[in-house]
């Protein structure tokens, strides 16, 4: 057997293993965004619409800035998460609830909301 064939075989085997894995990663990311949206819109959870205009949300408030162009405003996703976790870190005069330190949302919920908001 030539080296070429071995390589082809190996890649075929690996591919068959990796393809479903890659598929489920994409699916998971998609569902994280959906779950995050649900939490963001839930009045008892994130309730982001109380203060922020969000595309697809009805009767939004305007106390905070509209949630648009998030990737431009937060090139690093971790900065967006930090902002959702505790807006006081950047601006001690912010009226945004301190979701993380006050346990208004769990770490996992903040992760999911971050995934969603990052798509806006």
């Amino acid at each position, binding site marked *: 057997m030539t080296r070429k064939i071995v390589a082809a075989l190996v890649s075929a085997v690996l591919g068959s293993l990796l393809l479903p894995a890659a598929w489920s990663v994409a699916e998971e990311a998609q569902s994280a965004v959906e779950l995050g949206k649900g939490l963001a819109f839930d009045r008892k959870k994130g309730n982001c619409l109380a203060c922020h205009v969000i595309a697809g949300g009805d009767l939004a408030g305007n106390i905070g800035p509209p949630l648009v162009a998030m990737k431009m405003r937060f090139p690093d996703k971790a900065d967006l998460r930090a902002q959702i976790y505790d807006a006081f870190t950047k601006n001690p005069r912010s*009226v945004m609830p*301190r979701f993380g330190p006050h346990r208004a949302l769990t770490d996992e919920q903040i992760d999911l909301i971050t995934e969603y908001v990052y798509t806006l």
Partner: protein
Amino acid sequence: MKKILVTTLGVALVAGLAWATPEEDRLAFIDYHKKRFPNVAVEDYVNGVYAINPPAYQQWLQIEEFPPYELAMAEGKELFETPFANGKTYADCFPNGGIGIRQNYPYFDAETGQVKTIELEINECRERNGEKPFKYSKGKMAAISAYMAFTSRGEKLNVVIPDDPRALAAYEDGKEYYYSKRGQLNFSCADCHVASSGMMIRADMLSPALGHPTHFPVYRSKWDDMGTLHRRFGGCNKQVRATPLPAQSEEYRNLEYFLTYMSNGMEVNGPGARK
């Protein structure tokens, strides 16, 4: 020259750091509102959010044509005029027979060292005459308070902070409560009603703080019922996920003292109708 400059600077700093008097607070409060809503006349703030929201004002005028608080007011009048078992009435407990006096509440009572509200004195009157006290947030209490406010419509709020350190302490306590963040959602009263007044929170416009206490008790559509100012305080506390305090607790009475002082000189126009 340098010396003069330093002295001037020192005096200015000390003046800036000293406690503002209640009257300085009030003038600053009005000034803030004038700047925030330059087209709204100060006397119009008695109408709450409707003073700054013309479309909602038109709807509210229609509601006021058949006021939802009218039944409660009639009940309050009847309660007010019905003698207690001992033959005495509320009129015996209050100055001027209880008519047209709402503007003088709350006041500082030197004897007890406490802030007295009209609801507190309604119950004191009942108990003094051998009657059971009413609950403070709604029902018969709100009805009597509504009637007493109605007889005082047009009178100007005249909350006095006498030259007594305990009175000033009560005022400062109420002011501190107003500006302190609380609850899981971390809002102070002022965060919404001073810093963000006129902004939309979801579909509702946040009402301005100036004039807030003039129109209580109110018939609130959300409650489908009458409620006192302290019932509303409790609702605000719950909305920011803070534990509400009992109506007529010392903290709420002091808060009412501060908040009503801020609206001094404005007309009593209770009872009101609110969303």
